[in-house]
């Protein structure tokens, strides 16, 4: 499982261009940072209040005033800029964030996203997710293709939405999919799977791109 997540993170890392300002969600999306090439200069947003997020500090060297959006102690790059929550989300909604990477419980073929609440389960809250997917120029979903076999890519979400028609790209262990006005188009397929496999694991009709490529590991 760990290597499937690594595969997804590695592929998403290729979406970042030099100079991009991006936000990575907690969990699998955070792993993407490990695979962005060193010659691609990306500034990471920490929605609790800075642009210039970096990795974890050495034990004993924590700065208690520098935490990420999960509350964990982190470090910042030299060019960091710290700001308050209103500014932080102004950057998000204002269209200044190039990419946001998040997980999903469900994605619909029109780009609707559900990733924050399951009715009846313990409530956590949307945090900054609704603002991020509404505001970012490109919304990338990083997830395993199914939830223990249950479809997550569907004609219509059955869970309450995070936002309507917001997803641009879905990357799973099976392939890379673009949300288009015609539906979900597979642009890359991992060699471990056939077109039939990915279709069977999906709850809506997939479109296969005429120039379908192989999803490469490296």
């Amino acid at each position: 499982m760990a290597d499937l997540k690594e595969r997804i993170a590695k592929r998403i890392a290729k979406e970042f261009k030099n100079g991009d300002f991006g936000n990575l969600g907690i969990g699998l999306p955070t792993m993407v940072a490990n695979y962005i090439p060193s010659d691609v200069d990306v500034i990471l947003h920490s929605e609790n209040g800075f642009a210039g997020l970096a990795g974890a500090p050495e034990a004993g060297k924590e700065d208690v005033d520098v935490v990420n959006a999960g509350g964990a102690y982190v470090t910042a790059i030299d060019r960091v800029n710290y700001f308050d929550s209103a500014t932080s989300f102004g950057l998000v909604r204002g269209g200044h964030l190039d990419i946001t990477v998040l997980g999903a419980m469900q994605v619909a073929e029109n780009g609707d996203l559900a990733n924050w609440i399951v009715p009846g389960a313990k409530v956590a809250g949307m945090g900054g997710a609704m603002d991020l997917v509404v505001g970012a120029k490109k919304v990338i979903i990083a997830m395993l293709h199914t939830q223990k076999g249950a479809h997550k890519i569907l004609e219509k979400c059955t869970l309450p939405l995070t936002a309507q028609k917001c997803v641009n790209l879905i990357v799973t262990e099976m392939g890379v999919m673009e949300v288009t006005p015609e539906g979900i188009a597979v642009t890359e397929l991992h060699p471990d799977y056939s077109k039939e496999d990915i279709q069977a694991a999906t709850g809506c009709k997939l479109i296969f791109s005429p120039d379908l490529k192989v999803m490469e590991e490296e």
Partner: protein
Amino acid sequence: MVNKFLSADEAVAGVKDGMTIMVGGFLGTGSPEILMDALVRKGVKHLTVIGNDGGLPIGTYGAKTARGIAKLIDAGMVDHIIASHVGMNPAIADGMNAGTLKCTLVPQGTLAEKIRAANYGLGGVLTPTGVGTPVQDDPDELGRKKQIIEIEGKEYLLEMPLKADYAFIRASVCDRFGNFRCDKATKNFNYVMAGAADHVVIASEKVVEVGELDPETFDVAGVVVDTIVEGEAKWQI
């Protein structure tokens, strides 16, 4: 110059049962701990609390005590919490399940703007966040139905201002007039809350004389600060 200095206990003395308070901080980072402790000592009940989250329970990231709003939740002082994320404090879900705690969830950016609207004298804000989700469909924190307003073909939610009786804020440094700054990631909700309440109380890690530091040091104007409390310590892990 008016003397704004009070002890923590004096600063919270006017907080009454049933009041609405707002508390700065993000999962405890940037929360005014000495003011939370003073509120717990005072023991007020039935508070409505506005904050980004429910604070952190003891033990999280090495915390030797609960942090921020979690102290008020643990002491059973809160009837209603208005926040963007409460998943890090299981006591909130427990209170909701037991029927003792109401929780209104607000998207983080919307929460900041609702507070800013109250602070800046705006009638509300229009945001695309939450359109087509439960945030649109569910009533707001005061039970009002959300209005959807279409502008040039795009839908927005009208989000109403959010104000409080008291704002409790943590500063890293202030001068004796109350001009203040919050270092690094402790700014979070502290800046928008300073002015969004009838009484603004700051607890500062460091207090300097007026003129001791370049005025450019300070981000927030002391004119919005009613009370200054000394003795907020740097968080220890």
